[in-house]
């Protein structure tokens, strides 16, 4: 459905996106993950024909974004970072305007507007001026606008940014409910969002892709050897460390900061060892209180941080001035 090959976007002074390639099949939800300024918005703007690529190709449903932009535009729904709404219009007339822009036949417009209002639960605000809507409602109007012509591809740029946790949850549910008929690309810097709603993750850092994989595979990458956090109360740090190092399968033990009265360690296992039962037994048998024991380095957040860890960030502008 979406195919990006060797895409590069160069602005006057810097390269925003460098040689990225990925694909998304029908019905997939692809999470575009990266820090601010990583190149997420630029990539989306290329896919929506707002910006042409400097090099490389991108196509949607087989249509090239440069050569057949009109065909591409018919097949995408796009929610930019700030919802593109006109504050002086009310919700219904705004959606009617967008429906006309997207080429929906005049007879079907009213029905489509009703349907997307229901779908995004804004039908109680249809006659409200957009300038009077809260941020959460505006975002929903933005999503309604993107799906009004029922496009096969949806491109959502940070659909949950600026919403409160309750609204974020609602927005995620809404996006998940759309996944059946649409291929969705959404960008975000919130990791839990990707974990919850996406089938595939593209992690992008400083304009380059560092990983393209399913969420499950990303988790498995770290599974071979595990890191365990263990916290023990009422014991001497050195003593505990010595005891833990004796447990079978432990590769290393490193102490870390902890609350008062407790000591904590990161325990690294050798490959294919599951440490937690053994560690628990060792602590309890020594007569200490085990207060916490959990595997770390498994959440997407930690995988993400590890993948985007930069050696020493050098802004390109600086190099030029020296």
């Amino acid at each position, binding site marked *: 459905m979406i195919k990006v090959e060797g895409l590069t976007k160069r*602005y006057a002074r810097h390269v925003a996106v460098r040689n990225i390639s990925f694909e998304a099949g029908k019905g997939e939800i692809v999470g575009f993950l990266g820090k601010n300024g990583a190149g997420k918005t630029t990539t989306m703007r290329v896919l929506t024909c*707002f910006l*042409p690529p400097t090099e490389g190709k991108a196509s949607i449903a087989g249509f090239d974004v440069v050569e057949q932009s009109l065909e591409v535009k018919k097949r995408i729904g796009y929610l930019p970072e700030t919802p593109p709404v006109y504050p002086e219009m009310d919700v219904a007339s705004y959606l009617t305007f967008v429906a006309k822009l997207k080429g929906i036949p005049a007879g079907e417009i009213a029905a489509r507007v009703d349907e997307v209002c229901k779908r995004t639960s804004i039908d109680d605000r249809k006659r409200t001026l957009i300038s009077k809507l809260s941020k959460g409602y505006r975002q929903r109007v933005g999503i309604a*606008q993107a799906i009004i012509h029922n496009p096969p591809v949806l491109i959502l740029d940070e659909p949950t940014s600026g919403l409160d946790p309750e609204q974020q949850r609602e927005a995620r549910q809404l996006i998940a409910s759309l996944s059946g008929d649409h291929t969705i690309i959404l960008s975000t810097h919130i990791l839990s969002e990707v974990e919850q709603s996406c089938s595939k993750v593209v992690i992008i850092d400083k304009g380059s892709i560092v990983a393209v994989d399913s969420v499950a595979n990303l988790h498995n990458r770290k599974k071979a050897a595990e890191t365990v956090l263990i916290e023990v109360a009422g014991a001497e740090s050195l003593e505990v460390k010595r005891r833990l190092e004796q447990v079978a399968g432990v590769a290393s033990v490193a102490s870390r900061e902890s609350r008062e009265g407790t000591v904590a360690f990161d325990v690294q296992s050798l490959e294919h060892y599951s440490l937690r039962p053994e560690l628990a037994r060792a602590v309890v048998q020594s007569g200490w209180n085990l207060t916490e024991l959990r595997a770390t380095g498994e959440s997407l957040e930690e995988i993400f941080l590890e993948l985007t860890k930069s050696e020493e960030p050098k802004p390109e502008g600086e190099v030029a001035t020296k």
Partner: protein
Amino acid sequence: MRNVFTICGKELRAYFTSPVAYLLMGLFGLIFGFFFYSATAYFVMAGMRAQMSGQAQPMSVNDFVIAPLLGNASVVGLFLIPLISMRLFAEEKRSGTIELLMTSPISDWEIILGKWLGAMCMYLSILALSAVNVGVLFIWSKPDWRPILTGFLGLILQGGTVLAIGGFLSSLTKNQIIAGASTFTVCLLLWVLSWVSSYNEAPWAQAIAYCSILTHFEPFSKGIIDTKDLVYYASAIFLGLFLTARSLDSMRWRA
């Protein structure tokens, strides 16, 4: 074509759901009303004096009231039109809604034409106010309606030209003040260019004066429709819209 009307309707709605339309109409109504009053009051006084001195020929309403009035309207227009055109693209660029338009399945030309037409409709509704004043003259006198019609045609063409230029300048910036001020400057320059020919007879001076927007308006107010004036306005409008199209396109590669 449907897309052009969609955009045009949206623009018109934007003017009339904000105070902009009413403010502009109010300003124009006030200023034009004052001109109208001055022109007729002066005409009445001059007419009485002519009668007393035994002049047999009645004075022409067309020459003494309507022609100068339409000339004034065209100058007031030059000041008001930047206020109409400044928001056309600058507002959408600032609020990000330009992304909606440019990622919708419509062409740049449809966006540009729609916006220009919307602004034209706004300008026409302002101009319609002056038609009320001129209409009053028909109650107490018998002015010739043909120069009035050509005069309004001239005003419409002149407005279209300035709106096309203003739209282009608005597409260059996100800032409405910059768009408005630069359009105003260009309008003023186009107006005063005609002065060059009054102190210099050289061909280049004539050429510069030819570019003046008012030089081409004057024949219309006298009831003359000259092809060269029509060509001037039509090409100026096309140039403005064409530059806007190039400017929108440049947003894509300049970013």
